[in-house]
């Protein structure tokens, strides 16, 4: 395994003094090309779009969680002078459009016909001349509901007397969604039977929401004469969406153009196809005018793709010396009213199978029961790399519980069990092939940056004085970059990504990619990938994404897959162009191809560097007059489709220091040290930005975020005053560091990093809080660790949040 070690520093990265305004021709720090427009408010989002004659759509949503629809009276709404149409589920049913497929082969109501199944479910829509009238008219629709008892508690959803939610599914007599298992049950049970120590803990990862700044919406524009539908939409996966629309609506795929303009944050929230998009399309088809639908904040929080919602029983078996032998878990998964999980089809629990973490085990087994409840559908969303957040949370929490029981330092315990560098590629007990890793090196760096021993000494002193200080350690391994098409598809669409590179005659370039930036800085990173390969400065490379008519097919941006998949495609398509450029150069320099040497940006004759042509010269030649070498076509461009051979496995070591006010139980995150290894680092500034954002996400989930429901199934997180997301005041100065362990199979050795910090951070914070509460005999406490919930733990009664 190759190990590149550029810039590994045992001191924290000094980001305040880092010079980000550099102009590398390739990898390195540079300011983001997209930022001038974003920071000047010149981004163009869906809601900025104004088309001539455009109408506005608003959705009437169910006020209750579970009820039969007795009647809907739309007369008053129809009579509103500015209303163009009022559509109910019955109207859609008449067209066969009342139901649509979800991304996981379930169905979901576009508009409810028979029953409403969660609070906030779509019941009817209004199309009006302006958005105000559309909203006003909603209040004129009269719906009579016959209230049914709701299923709110996931643990009792399968009770024999539980009301059946999915009466739409033929023969359905319970709320069972699916069962899933991974690993070897018998082998795991055998290891547990002979282990010295077994620790069991119930661990809840509550339902949370991605809460992007921009809510979801679209403008649908159907032109009757040409039969062309253009959909501007908040989509992280424009191509996948187009194909699904074609399959569902019967409109031919070539007549559908899906455009995702600038996106104000996605985090997985913009992967699913929501009923609102379908409603807008239907409205435009029916009325023949462009129709805009833009949900408001409450609609976004109450009805769109949530994340997590796993109730996990974690069990770990070890020797008394602290060698971990096996992990076993049973999970109850709350999938809401419809299974809207966005994950590769063969992975109904996403990549939860990596719950074995970063440790070398003898056996592992997971069984899962997924159920329907009267809550919003969705799942997976929120920067979790397909449920790896849940998996890593489980393993890192249960390992800390083991440390507690063995009275062993959590670092020492982890060190004893980490997979060793020479074991890579490492096949985990659940069948995942970890590509590369040097775990202890990252852990050591984090410990050194933190001053771990001094922190422990400080903690000991503080404990003497009754002060509550906690140190949390977490190690994570992710599996990102879905994925090899032999294993992974979404609704039958393989997860390979196309890429197209064209060099213009003057040596400027355009790269077209299928993935879709939501703030990750793809316009910069991808230009840098191409620049590194072909020697054209990033400023001269335009990156186009988000338009199905302008880009090759691919499955979009989520699960940290852009750099692992589309990034690899961009590198390889550049190499393909460079190969052609080399042939043209050989003609220009009148030497054989083998006699040429590539120096970033030009080909020179071996042994005679004065004879060279630049890539720009070659581009002009490729398009210009004069002969090209035999068999070479004009132009300088190429296209490829990259099918990843494996996922990439970024990892990291995180350490968190918290102080808890003993009087109020309020938690203050004092320090956070994050060492990330995402292989080759393309633009360190962008990586740091992704890491900072993810760490902040972690503070949110650990300390305050949760979508709660009351007994009636009312969602209690319907505004940002109720669903709290962290601010700058809750987060410390981030201390980041890195190591570089390239991926052996990725063309440039890069691994995904967009979600690493979201996946790695909460457990470090929770571990720190629980560590602080050690004097109270606390081994585990569930998120969100609000002051009240921490106080409960201090009283000796930590309570699950659901």
């Amino acid at each position, binding site marked *: 395994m190759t190990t590149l070690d550029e810039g590994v520093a045992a001191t924290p990265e000094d980001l305040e003094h880092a010079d980000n305004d550099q102009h590398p021709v390739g990898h390195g720090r540079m300011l983001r090309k997209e930022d001038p427009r974003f920071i000047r408010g010149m981004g163009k989002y869906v809601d900025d779009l104004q088309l001539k004659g455009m109408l506005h759509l608003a959705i009437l949503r169910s006020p209750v969680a579970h009820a039969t629809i007795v009647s809907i009276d739309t007369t008053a709404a129809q009579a509103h002078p500015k209303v163009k149409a009022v559509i109910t589920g019955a109207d859609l049913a008449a067209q066969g459009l009342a139901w649509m497929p979800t991304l996981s082969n379930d169905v979901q109501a576009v508009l409810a016909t028979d029953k409403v199944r969660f609070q906030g479910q779509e019941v009817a829509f209004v199309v009006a001349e302006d958005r105000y009238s559309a909203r006003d008219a909603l209040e004129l629709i009269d719906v009579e509901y016959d209230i049914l008892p709701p299923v709110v508690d996931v643990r009792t959803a399968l009770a024999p007397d539980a009301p059946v939610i999915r009466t739409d599914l033929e023969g359905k007599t319970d709320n069972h969604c699916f069962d899933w298992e991974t690993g070897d049950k018998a082998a795991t049970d055998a290891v547990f039977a002979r282990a010295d120590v077994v620790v069991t803990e119930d661990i809840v990862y509550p339902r949370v929401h991605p809460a992007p700044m921009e809510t979801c919406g679209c403008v649908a524009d159907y032109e009757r004469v040409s039969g062309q539908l253009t959909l501007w939409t908040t989509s992280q996966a424009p191509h996948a969406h187009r194909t699904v629309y074609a399959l569902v609506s019967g409109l031919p795929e070539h007549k559908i153009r899906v455009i995702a303009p600038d996106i104000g944050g996605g985090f997985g929230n913009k992967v699913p196809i929501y009923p609102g998009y379908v409603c807008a399309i239907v409205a435009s088809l029916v009325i023949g005018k462009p129709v805009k639908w833009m949900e408001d904040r409450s609609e976004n929080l109450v009805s769109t793709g949530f994340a997590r919602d796993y109730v996990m029983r974690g069990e770990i078996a070890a020797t008394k010396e602290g060698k971990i032998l096996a992990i076993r878990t049973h999970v109850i998964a709350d999938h809401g009213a419809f299974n809207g999980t966005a994950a590769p089809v063969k992975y109904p629990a996403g990549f939860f199978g990596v719950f074995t973490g970063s440790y070398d085990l003898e056996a592992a087994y997971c069984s899962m029961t997924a159920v329907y409840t009267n809550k919003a559908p969705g799942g997976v969303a929120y920067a979790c790399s397909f449920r790896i957040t849940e998996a890593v949370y489980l393993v890192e929490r249960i390992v800390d519980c083991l440390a507690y029981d063995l009275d062993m330092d959590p670092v020492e315990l982890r060190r004893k069990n980490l997979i060793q560098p020479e074991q890579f590629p490492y096949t985990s007990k659940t069948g995942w092939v970890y590509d590369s890793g040097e775990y202890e090196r990252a852990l050591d760096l984090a410990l050194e940056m933190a001053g771990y021993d001094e922190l422990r000494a400080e903690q000991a002193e503080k404990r003497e004085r009754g002060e509550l200080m906690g140190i949390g350690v977490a190690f994570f391994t992710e599996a990102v970059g879905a994925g090899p098409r032999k294993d992974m598809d979404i609704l039958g669409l393989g997860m390979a990504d196309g890429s197209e590179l064209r060099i213009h005659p003057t040596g400027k370039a355009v790269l077209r990619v299928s993935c879709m930036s939501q703030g990750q800085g793809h316009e910069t990173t991808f230009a840098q990938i191409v620049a590194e390969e072909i020697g054209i400065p990033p400023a001269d490379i335009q990156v186009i994404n988000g338009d199905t008519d302008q880009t090759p097919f691919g499955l979009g941006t989520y699960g940290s897959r852009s750099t692992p998949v589309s990034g690899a495609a961009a590198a390889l398509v550049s190499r393909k162009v460079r190969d052609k450029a080399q042939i043209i150069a050989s003609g220009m320099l009148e030497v054989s191809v083998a006699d040429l040497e590539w120096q970033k940006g030009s080909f020179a004759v071996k042994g005679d560097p004065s004879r060279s042509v630049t890539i720009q010269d070659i581009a002009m030649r490729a398009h210009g007059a004069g002969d090209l070498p035999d068999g070479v076509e004009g132009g300088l461009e190429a296209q490829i489709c990259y099918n990843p051979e494996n996922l990439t496995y970024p990892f990291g070591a995180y350490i968190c220091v918290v102080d808890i006010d003993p009087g109020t139980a309020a938690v203050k995150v004092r320090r956070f040290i994050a060492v990330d290894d995402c292989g080759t680092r393309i633009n360190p500034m962008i990586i740091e930005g992704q890491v900072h954002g993810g760490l902040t996400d972690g503070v949110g989930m650990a300390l*305050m975020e949760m979508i709660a429901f009351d007994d009636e199934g009312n969602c209690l997180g319907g505004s940002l005053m109720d669903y*709290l997301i962290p601010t700058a005041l*809750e987060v410390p100065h981030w201390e980041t560091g890195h190591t570089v362990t390239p991926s052996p199979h990725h063309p440039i050795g890069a691994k995904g990093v967009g979600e690493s910090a979201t996946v790695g951070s909460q457990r470090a914070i929770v571990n720190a809080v629980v560590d602080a509460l050690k004097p109270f005999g606390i081994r585990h406490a569930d998120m969100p660790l609000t002051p009240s919930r921490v106080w409960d733990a201090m009283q000796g009664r930590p309570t699950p949040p659901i």
Partner: protein
Amino acid sequence: MQVPAPFEYERATSVDNAIDLLERLGDEARLIAGGHSLLPMMKLRLANLEYVIDINDLHNELGYVRVGTDEVRIGAMTRHRELLESPELAALFPIFADAEQVIADPIVRNRGTIGGSLCQADPSEDLTAVCTTLDASCVIRGRGGERVVTMAEFHRGPYETAVEHGEILTEIRIPVRPHGSSAYAKVERRAGDWAVTSAGAAVWMDGDVITGARVGLAAVGPNTTGIPAISEALQAQAPSEELYARAGAIAAESCSPVTDNRGTADYKRHLADELTRRTLRLSVERIQAGVAGDQGRNG
């Protein structure tokens, strides 16, 4: 985007004009000050009004902090930010700056007013607790003239005050007594969040002995009486940890919190105790250090 239902808009030019408009437009008219409570309710369509009467032009008339010989008068249109930055209040009543630092965020504080805060009468609202702690009274004006009510009379319950239709709150009056200081503490789940529980305390001393003490709580049920039992327990006592503990216990007993997303009733009760002790302790420390209290008036 959340949009309110249609409504008409009027802009008052004076207090009398605002009263005229209220009378003329009837029950479906509401005053709007900073709008940070009213507008969210309108956008969520929890408040549906026909008329909004904007009183922001009355900031000249009603935006002030005036220090008199034995009382401070604060105009109802004084904004959170002005309270936070007022040197007069900092000198006399440090409780204001303590509280204002943890009320909402700068955007809200730039517009939200003390009048709007008291009139909104949200059970978690902080300035009601501050005014209760300081034994403030409120000046309400209507066509028939002005009346002055105590905080206990003003605050009738959640979202309910003594301000009748056709009336406007114009001023808050706070008595100034020598040798006193005050403090405020709040526990929130996140900066800008409403209180899980907050407590304010004001203490007056003569030498080493407490001559007066008041505590006001927010977010733990109706409580605008300044908890007389605490005042009695502290009267003529020398400050001590035991004394604060006794006051804290009374605070915990005399509140009636409910369990919600912000915390359990038990926890809130615990906070009423803990924060009462903290704010009493800090008030006394402030008096002893001579950092704040009555210097503004005498010195």
